[in-house]
Structures are given as C-alpha cells and as structure tokens.
C-alpha cells in the first residue's frame, strides 16, 4: 500500500482551508461563519503538527497550542459581539446588518 506522507496531510489541510473559506464567503448566518473560521484555523494546525512530525521537533506543536488558545479567545469575543448584535438588531444574518452602510 502507498505509504502516508507529509503531502497527504498538507492536501487534507488545503481541502479544509478551501471548505472553510467557501463557508466564510457564502454563508449568511454569523454563527456558521465563525464555525468556518474554526475550520480554517484547524487546517493551519494540521500543517503545524505535520511539519513538527517531519522535522522531529516539538516547536510546531507548541505553536499549534497557541493557535488553539487564540482561537478560543477569538470565538469568545465574537460570540459576545453576536449576542450584543442580536439584542439590538434581532438578527444573526450578516447581510441584514448594514448599520455602517451609507
């Protein structure tokens, strides 16, 4: 059987990155846009851990932990903003929020 190489992990990472980007661009529900951002960050983490394995070095995994921590902080603030937005505008759809539109 063909062995698994680093390329397989990178292609998986590219696939998740593309799916996440399409989610950010096409969906209107802000909750799903945030989930797509999580997909993109996870795609980055796959690359970090795969290259950590490739170079036999733990530094990449430490970076992945920082990415996870920053993603957690980002999600917390974004969902707080979403709750404040829902309280004022009664919507979670991104295209109905046009307060700054001239």
């Amino acid at each position, binding site marked *: *059987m063909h062995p698994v190489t680093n390329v397989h992990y990178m292609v998986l990472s590219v696939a998740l990155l593309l*799916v996440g980007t399409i*989610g950010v661009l096409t969906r209107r529900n802000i*909750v799903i846009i945030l989930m797509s951002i999580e997909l993109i960050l996870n795609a980055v983490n796959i690359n970090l851990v795969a290259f950590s394995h490739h170079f036999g070095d733990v530094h990449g995994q430490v970076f992945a932990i*920082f990415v996870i*921590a*920053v993603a*957690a902080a980002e999600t917390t603030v974004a969902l707080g903003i979403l*709750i404040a937005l829902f309280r004022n505008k009664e919507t979670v759809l991104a295209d109905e929020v046009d307060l700054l539109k001239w």
Partner: protein
Amino acid sequence: MDVPLFLIFAAIAVACGVNVVVQRHPITSAISLIGVMGSLAALYLLLGGEFIAAVQVVVYAGAIMVLFVFVIMLLNAGAEGRSGRSWPVRLLGIPFLVLLLGLLSFVVQAYAPKTDRVVFGAFTSGGPRDIGKLLFTEYLLPFELTSVLILIAIAGAVVLARKEID
C-alpha cells in the same frame, strides 16, 4: 495500519467539514464541526502529538463547541433561508472548487519533501512533558501573554454580552 486510519479519519474530517458549510440549520453544523475536531484529534495522535490531541478534544470539541451550541440555543436561530442565487451559479462553484483543490494539491506535492513517510510511533516527543518544558522555558513570554489575552477576552465577552442597565 497507518494508511487506512489516515484515510478514514481524513475522509470523516472533510465530509464533516463540507457538512458544516452545506447545512441550513446552525445546530447541525455545530455537530458536524465536533466530528471534524474529533477526527483531527485522531490524526494528531497518528502524528505523535499526544498532548495536542488531548487539547483538541478538551478545548475545541469540549469548550468552544459548548460555547457555540449555547449561543445557538440562546439566540434560537432558525434555519437560514435560501439565498437568491440561481442554480447554474451554484453548480458552477463545484467544478471551480475541485479545480482549485487540484491545483493547490499539485503545487503542494511538487514543493513538499518527497521521501518523508509518516509512520505511527516514529515521533514520540509530543507528550505533555516535552511541550510543558518548552512552554515554561523557551516560550514563557508568549505563554504569559496568551494568559493575559484570554483574560482580556473573558472581560471583553462579559462587557459585550451584558445587558445595558439604564
């Protein structure tokens, strides 16, 4: 044993990832995202990252997804309505997506190191001991800055989500 495990979990990750984007109702997307996180944790285990696999399950599949599901329940967000795009425009997206994925995969496999095989058990220094040692020596300043960042995020979320008292 590596190849089938990788293929199974990669297929689950991609299928659940597509499901996150395709589903109309946010709660279905959230459950699919848990599937992505779980299968990625298994892939991290295959890569020798034991600690990061545990962190992935505890922080992502545990904490962040609970936060998502909680907010979905709190806002009582229903299914998203159809967008106004016509069918040809939507179907045109799929071949372009496959084309872009193929192109990027070609570039990746052309530039990536070829000889390297990912074998389960070849890299074992991804445990909590090694990562903790790095975190508390070489990465001490970023580690402390991250804790400050999370503190700011907690305070910011409380301030943003609180009810205005007038």
